[in-house]
């Protein structure tokens, strides 16, 4: 099992203690293999972002076992196994697009940064905007720069926390297509947090449906739509069936409350 990227065994996360004790995640068991595209979906407060942050070593579990590429998350972080994209692009205003993409490489002391950066900008189709500043770009373009920046150092795991949540529907669908293309080209494993059912189904190989109080994974649904996916996929019968399946899984847990 060398190609297991994420291995979570009965992972839990509790914030605070005493009166303020909140159990954010409980008994999370999830295994993600290399090359998978997994979406975490669920209502607000189900802990999907917290789970992503645990995987990315932005916070630590309070119980259970979590390994990334067979290592503790902190080790995986210092090995630079993670590329992260947030809902906000969080680009540095005083740096051009190229310089933003080069930032991780600068910190890691990598040479030939401009070449890597221009290759990444080709990948996200922003080569013409290399010398622009972030504020001169649209929201979708900024998010593409953020994706390029996350991929410059070839992380084995790409973590995306509602990356298209702030974009309009049209841009959103375009970006989903882009992400699938980039995923196919780079072969990176992706963990993707979203609260959009169609988005989760369109992008993922598997969808983990989560429920709140405490956050749990209630169901993992294999999507199994053929690759590559495109506009036709969105209009196919199988796609529609999978969207329905995820929606019903989400409604089942609502009914249980």
């Amino acid at each position, binding site marked *: 099992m060398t190609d297991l990227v994420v291995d979570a065994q009965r992972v839990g996360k509790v914030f605070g203690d005493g009166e303020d004790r909140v159990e954010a995640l409980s008994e999370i068991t999830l295994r993600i293999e290399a090359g998978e595209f997994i979406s975490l979906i669920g209502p607000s407060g189900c802990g999907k972002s917290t789970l992503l942050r645990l995987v990315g070593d932005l916070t630590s579990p309070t119980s259970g076992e979590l390994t990334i590429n067979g290592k503790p998350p902190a080790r995986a*972080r210092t090995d630079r196994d993670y590329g992260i994209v947030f809902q906000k692009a969080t680009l540095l205003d005083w740096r051009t697009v190229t310089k933003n993409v080069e930032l991780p490489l600068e*910190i890691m002391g990598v040479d030939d940064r401009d070449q890597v950066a221009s290759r990444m900008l080709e990948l996200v189709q922003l080569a013409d905007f290399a010398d622009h500043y972030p504020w001169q770009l649209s929201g979708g373009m900024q998010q593409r720069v953020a994706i390029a920046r996350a991929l410059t150092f070839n992380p084995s795991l790409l973590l995306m926390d509602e990356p298209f949540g702030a974009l309009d529907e049209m841009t959103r669908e375009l970006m989903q297509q882009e992400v699938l293309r980039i995923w196919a080209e780079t072969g990176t494993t992706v963990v993707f947090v979203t609260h959009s059912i169609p988005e989760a189904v369109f992008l993922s190989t598997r969808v983990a449906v989560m429920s709140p109080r405490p956050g749990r994974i209630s169901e993992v649904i294999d999507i199994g739509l053929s690759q590559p996916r495109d506009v036709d996929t969105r209009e196919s019968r199988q796609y529609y069936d999978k969207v329905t399946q995820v929606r019903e899984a989400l409604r089942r847990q609502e009914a249980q409350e």
Partner: protein
Amino acid sequence: MEEARTDAHVGGARLSARSRRTLSVAGVVLTLLLLWELYKLVWSALGWTHPVRPDDVVMPHTWDMIIELFRPVRRGGALLIVDLAGRSLWTLREAVLGFLIGGVLGFGIGVWFVRSRLAERAFMPYVVASQTVPILAIAPMVVVWGLGLGVPGWISVAIIAAYLTFFPVAINTLRGLRSPDPHTLELMRSYAAAPNDVLWKLQVPSALPYIFTALKVTATASIVGALVGELPVGFQSGLGRALLSFSQQFAVQSKKLYGTVIVCAAVGILLVGGVSLLERRLVPQRFAEGEATA
């Protein structure tokens, strides 16, 4: 506003931003001069003496203040403006050194506090308390201690100027270093960035606009510090001395005092201008393009 509109009409878009600024500055100065002269005219005509007597001692004509600058300080001496220019250089040297010391010290304190909550909690009260002590009270002490240690007087004055400079710089640096989006810090964490990389590649660039705001405020404060600091030193060379002696002769020499005040203001504007110039070089003008086309 009126000037701005006509100017935008006449000039190109790029030219107008600068000349608009020049025109508005000139407009303000001209308006103030007019108000001064109008007050004199009306109050003299009606014989009013409140709140200020409009006579030529208390309120000399604006042009007389300027003309006074081009008269000898005393019979056979140098022109007032030449004398004041020499003094300005002296005071500017103290102020600039104090400004630099205070700026570096303030920046250092900001960095130290942002890295150590403990240090911030332990020392912030003293930093704040230091600013409640009136400068007039500590200035003579600094000078006396300095002389005891063999420190040249002008350096003691610079230290007094630094005392006024470091606080706003420290507070603004601290605020600026804390200004980046928490997600950006998390990104740096995910790159396993060293603390120094986080500081120089993220926090300091984010803090620059905050730091420059403080530097512009303290550029003038450092001049005030130098002027005040000069008084207890008792040297004859600076602008502070000139202010003191001319104010003692106000009843007969009021125009000289006004002239000196004008020169002090000019020195302050010079220093702030220098800081602004540096700011324009170091801080990317994020909205510069938007401004030019607006």
